[in-house]
């Protein structure tokens, strides 16, 4: 079944404690290439049947109203992904 992926990130100006802890830990494991890390959320919404425009619009609205907290987060991506085995 097709899925709609919604990506939500903390707004850039908002402190991301998790990202901060990760970027501090990476070099200790030898991963030195990254100067900053931010952690966000990825939602996969399964649709039974075809993804119509109407359904995509619903996903966008759900992303803005429920899946993200507009006070601190941005919806950075809403996209349809093809069915996977």
């Amino acid at each position, binding site marked *: 079944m097709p899925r709609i992926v919604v990506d939500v990130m903390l707004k850039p100006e908002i402190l991301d*404690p*998790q990202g901060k*802890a990760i970027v501090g*830990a990476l070099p200790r*494991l030898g991963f030195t290439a990254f100067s900053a890390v931010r*952690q966000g959320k990825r939602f996969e919404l399964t649709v039974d049947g075809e993804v119509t425009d109407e359904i995509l619009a619903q996903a966008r609205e759900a992303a803005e109203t429920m899946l993200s907290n507009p006070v601190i987060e941005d919806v950075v991506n809403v996209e349809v992904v093809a069915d996977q085995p």
Partner: protein
Amino acid sequence: MTETPLIGGATLAPVDARLAGARIGVVTFPGTLDDRDAIRAVRVSGATAVELWHADSGLGGVDAVIIPGGFSYGDYLRAGAISRFAPLMSTIIKAATGAASSNPLPVLGICNGFQILTEAHLLPGSMIKNDHLKFLCRDQVLRVENNTTAWTNAYSAGQDITVPLKNQDGQYIADEKTLDALEAEGRVAFRYVGGNPNGSRRDIAGISNAAGNVVGLMPHPEHAVEAGYGPGHTGTDGLGFFTSVLNTLLGGN
């Protein structure tokens, strides 16, 4: 500053020199919370507690190690995920898997310590968010399913004990094959009784490795070692963990 490690400093007199000779290490990571409590529990049992720092790589000659509860690295990323890579953990993993000796190091992981042990793959499975998605603190009844491990031999098999439970990511999960194997090998050490508090598979509260030297559980025995400060104001059911390891170390078991 005056030396006041606890709010006072637990200086319970060692009752028995033999017990006091047993040195139990308690690891502190940044964000560890229950290290003081674990140290107190060790002292109450009569053994000597040794503070261990995550960034060191030596174990200071301790006879056993407790990885206490808390929110190491804030539980950011995943509970225990960042701590698992501490230098001291590499040493602990080596000593606990006993590749080099026939006496593998007894290791107890409590709550966040349990999560660290699963992230380190010393114990199978993992913890995810409680099924109700909330932090839950309550007095919890556990059944001791296996009383032959290094940390449970002071209990009788099937005994019910009450100790505090407090966590957000306490739902134990593993694939069916792993769960079946745990059951078959008697490695389910504790099960929740009187209602599953977080959705853990098969009501599992704690497990051990095959050798029985490594035990991890979500509830907190170290919070039930002193009358007046544990469940129901009187409970001291957790003390058995700390006397168990002394049995193991002193050859009583």
